[in-house]
């Protein structure tokens, strides 16, 4: 190859930097969708545990049930419920995406496209749900 033009560059001596941990692995859609799927799965699981228990109170007495379900009607719980639906929505759509990847021969090829479709569907779901929910929560 041709001789290089020698631009003078000064090399600064090596220096130690402070961050000692490794970098975060920069996975792409596949990895982040899995992270979200996992987090939402766990969240839903814990909600489900609580939800079965509180619903079981219907068997104790109407009063007991109504007392507990009453706490669900605070704005904070309302927001929590919104988050729950968002989580379920993502988990469900992405779950279907995973199933398609597993069972369609072309699934892995279109996984990235399917991820963005999941996001699109999820946003549509939220647009349909959130305003209604918030109206319910904050209306007197």
């Amino acid at each position, binding site marked *: 190859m041709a001789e290089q033009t020698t631009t003078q*560059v000064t090399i600064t001596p090596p*220096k130690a930097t402070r961050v000692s941990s490794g970098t975060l692995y920069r996975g792409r859609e596949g990895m982040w969708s899995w992270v979200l799927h996992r987090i939402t799965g766990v969240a839903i699981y814990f909600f489900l545990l609580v939800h079965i228990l509180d619903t079981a109170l219907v068997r104790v007495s109407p009063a007991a049930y109504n007392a507990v379900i009453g706490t669900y009607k605070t704005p904070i719980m309302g927001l929590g419920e919104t988050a729950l639906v968002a989580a379920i929505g993502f988990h469900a759509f992405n779950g279907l995406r995973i199933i398609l990847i597993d069972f369609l021969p072309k699934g892995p090829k279109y*996984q990235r496209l399917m991820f963005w479709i999941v996001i699109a569907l999820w946003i549509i779901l939220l647009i349909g749900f959130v305003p209604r929910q918030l109206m319910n929560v904050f209306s007197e």
Partner: protein
Amino acid sequence: MSTVLEERPAAADAIQKFTATVAIRRFDPDVDDEPRWQEFQVEMLPTDRVLDALHQIKWEQDGSLTFRRSCAHGVCGSDAMRINGRNRLACKTLMKDLDISKPVYVEAIKGLPLEKDLVVDMEPFFASYREVQPFLQASSKPDKERLQSAEQRARFDDTTKCILCAACTSSCPVFWTDGQYFGPAAIVNAHRFIFDSRDEASSVRLDILNDKEGVWRCRTTFNCTEACPRGIQVTQAIAEVKAAVLRGHA
């Protein structure tokens, strides 16, 4: 005959040097308790790869920097490492393709025991490979070649490309958790034989991979496919093996 070719200065094109900072996660177990980051300045040409940067550091600045390498063009699988947070081969990653306004972060692949600087212990990786019986098992002894149609040959072509670099396995979040998962590379190499029309032991391999640590641990995160320097459709191959296990045959 003479086709007029456009003058295209390719290699010698714009021999413009540039400087870049490379941050390397150093570790020498004899001295350090913890890995530490260290930054170096390198002077690069547009055709230079991360491997050239590492060489420049080793050869001109700090001889103790340790990494593996051999072929320098992406066919031997020695130098898989994490560059800017992703697994790649240092010899296949051009410096100019990275964002050099920031340091280029280079560290060892994840999930295998760190030995020194960018070198990890590859033994667990090869142990998984050996376990899937990665060799042809065929009982007939023909005196010429076994016949195989071009289509049958094409069935497993993709997975024959594997160079056992471990970029895939060490990018897999499931493998990072406990290192017990067979990992994508072992499954890729099983796939190469499971779908070879000449092989008679696919059911054995399907059985091996139908295991607690086998194909079912794959969570389709696609990190392996993104990381594979040979462009192997790793997740696709895993999906095909899963399907074969469910079917009970290749």
